[in-house]
């Protein structure tokens, strides 16, 4: 059992903190503009798509936890090696490593693009990415407990943003939601699939599981985390569907930020500027947890220190941000990543669970 991860008690985290980890990894840059992507598929019934994918994510998490409990202190990388053997297992781990890295990269470039389109059109890409990467390096070197702390604070400090939706609600027209369930069922499912990029993040559970102190109590916080995320997305999509008229929504790239742009205070004319800046708090746990997950995968295969890894990783990411700049490039990365992520996050856990089950039956 060389794949068992031995974690010192002082490096472990409490089960209830997994709530923040799951929730903050899910909420990221996707929420800025997921509305029009689903709307293209399921029109005014887009909120059903959100509901469907929310329920599906709960099911997947049940399967994930079942798989993890079969091997008591393994993460996904270890389980892969146990189930498929070292060679194939490591091959899958490399894919997963790249998945985490691309997730990191995609969050970063999407956020940079938002800053450049909304606030500082002339601000150079390298500057924003360097600033963010330094922040990530700092947090990452603090270890898992610091990263989890960041997600806790990210949740606490940014949760209030959801209440700002009350302002656009004044301009919304519930009529746009009717007729309910006009779209075909298949279109609603397509819309749910298009949500992938926005709702992923809970797969972090696969990696963080061995680090949880009281593993028996992990179910509750994970499901609550998912529930809060789903409810949040549901609120945002419902407000968006009623606030924008159909074609308008499908032309709005960052509908959530446009929702904020109607908000005005006597002391703050343009609320969305504040929101965009605040979003750094929201994406920070995203970035940290993905790079942490990538590192976990790599250390199992080759011997590399955390310090060396994070600097190397950051340099590569920084270099890559020079090449990917235009909306079309970023959009196609999001699309391809969303497609791949669907199989990695929603299909692979089912596959792995069945295989692990079969293997366990055969060996016993």
């Amino acid at each position, binding site marked *: 059992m060389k794949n068992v991860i031995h974690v010192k008690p002082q490096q472990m985290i409490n089960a209830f903190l997994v709530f923040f980890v799951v929730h903050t990894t899910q909420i990221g840059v996707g929420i800025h503009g997921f509305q029009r992507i689903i709307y293209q598929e399921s029109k005014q019934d887009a909120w059903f798509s959100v509901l469907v994918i929310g329920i599906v994510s709960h099911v997947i998490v049940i399967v994930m936890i079942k798989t993890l409990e079969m091997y008591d202190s393994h993460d996904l990388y270890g389980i892969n090696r146990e189930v498929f053997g070292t060679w194939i297992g490591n091959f899958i781990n490399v894919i997963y490593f790249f998945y985490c890295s691309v997730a990191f990269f995609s969050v970063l470039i999407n956020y940079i693009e938002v800053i450049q*389109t*909304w*606030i*500082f059109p*002339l*601000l*150079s890409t*390298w*500057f924003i990415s*360097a*600033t963010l990467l*330094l922040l990530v390096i700092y947090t990452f070197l603090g270890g898992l407990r610091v990263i989890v702390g960041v997600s806790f604070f990210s949740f606490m400090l940014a949760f209030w943003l959801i209440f700002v939706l009350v302002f656009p609600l004044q*301009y919304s*027209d519930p*009529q*746009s*939601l*009717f*007729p309910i369930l*006009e779209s075909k069922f298949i279109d609603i499912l397509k819309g749910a699939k298009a949500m992938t990029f926005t709702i992923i993040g809970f797969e972090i559970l696969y990696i963080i599981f061995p680090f949880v102190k009281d593993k028996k109590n992990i179910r509750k916080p994970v499901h609550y985390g998912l529930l809060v995320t789903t409810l949040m997305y549901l609120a945002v999509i419902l407000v968006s569907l009623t*606030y*924008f*008229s*159909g*074609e*308008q929504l499908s*032309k709005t790239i960052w509908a959530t930020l*446009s929702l904020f*742009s*109607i908000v*005005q205070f006597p002391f703050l*004319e*343009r609320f969305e500027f504040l929101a965009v800046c605040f979003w750094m708090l929201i994406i920070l746990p995203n970035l940290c947890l993905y790079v942490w997950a990538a590192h976990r995968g790599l250390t199992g295969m080759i011997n590399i220190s955390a310090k060396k890894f994070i600097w190397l990783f950051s340099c590569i990411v920084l270099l890559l941000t020079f090449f990917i700049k235009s909306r079309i490039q970023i959009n196609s990365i999001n699309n391809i990543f969303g497609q791949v992520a669907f199989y990695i996050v929603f299909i692979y856990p089912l596959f792995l669970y069945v295989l692990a089950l079969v293997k366990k039956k055969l060996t016993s």
Partner: protein
Amino acid sequence: MIKKLGLVILSLTLLIGGCAEQKLLEKIGLITLAGYDLNEDGKVVTTAVIRQVDQEFQSMVTTSSAVNDSSLGALTEINRKTTKKLMQGQMRITLFGETLATEGIGSFLNTLSKNSSTSSGILLAMTAGNAKELLEYPYKNINDVGQEIYKLIEQNVDAELVTSSTLHEVSQDYYSVGRDMIIPIIERKEEVIEVTGVALFNKDKLVGQLPAKDSFYLLLIRGKFKSGKFETTIPGDIFSSNQSDSSEPVPVVLDTISSTKKLKLTDKNVPEFELQINLNGRILELDAEMDFDNPVEIEKLEKAINQSLTEELKSILDYCQEINSDVFGLGKQYRSQVRNSKLTHESWHAKYPTAKVNIKINFKILRSGVFE
């Protein structure tokens, strides 16, 4: 030591590289209003009202205009005439000239929505005649014409005398299937600027106008109406105690306190709608002798008010159907009630002129002031 030095160098590069573009108030001109017209050659004439602040903190308002093919190109053109860099972030209002509105303002709405430096809360209005003339007139009592127009429309929107025409609300209608947009019309009358009417559109083209007093009915049907004053006339012969010439119509000023609106599609083939409006209100002015303690009299009065409201509403509706502008959102109702209608702007506007609306208005008098 080397590590520390490295960190210092790193943070210095970030500090220096991170200076985003500066926007010093003394060095920029704030465009508070932009007006667009179309000239004879089909080019866009842009007039901007610019507020500049100098070092002594005195602000100065100037207007400047340029001719160009595009609205933003004209701004660059205006920039060449000013000493300060022009910024759109404080833009509060956009005006369209009448000829431009007739040609269509869709591309302007698109450009405005695209621009992240302008808020989606900016107000839109149409000028009767040219926007340039209205803005460049040397008003005696108005210092800042941009601020004046903004305050004028904002105040009227707050009092629910005209429909709110923020960029978001107008483009919501523009991009929707089944509701056409309306924006207020402003006009210069000697030395003052006033709201004179409502411009009705079909998609993005101006097709008709209604006088300002009819805004009330539009507000009522579009469903955003909460409370407001309006005036109507009722036939004089309903008052039994009336000594004056009984056939003459009597004006009534009413103030609604609450209202509910229900629009329903009753027959999708015609299409036929049922519009039920319940109003609760009080009488502010009535130029006739009347006994407000007599329930029979009150009922008579309510009936007369209902009748006259219905008639006026009907005539507005007929007018809108005639010019084919669905400002009431009947199409939206149709789309939301008919499954798989696949309604488009064209298919709805083919049905709309022959649509039938049965109007039922129920006005209830709650109070009539402190003196009989």
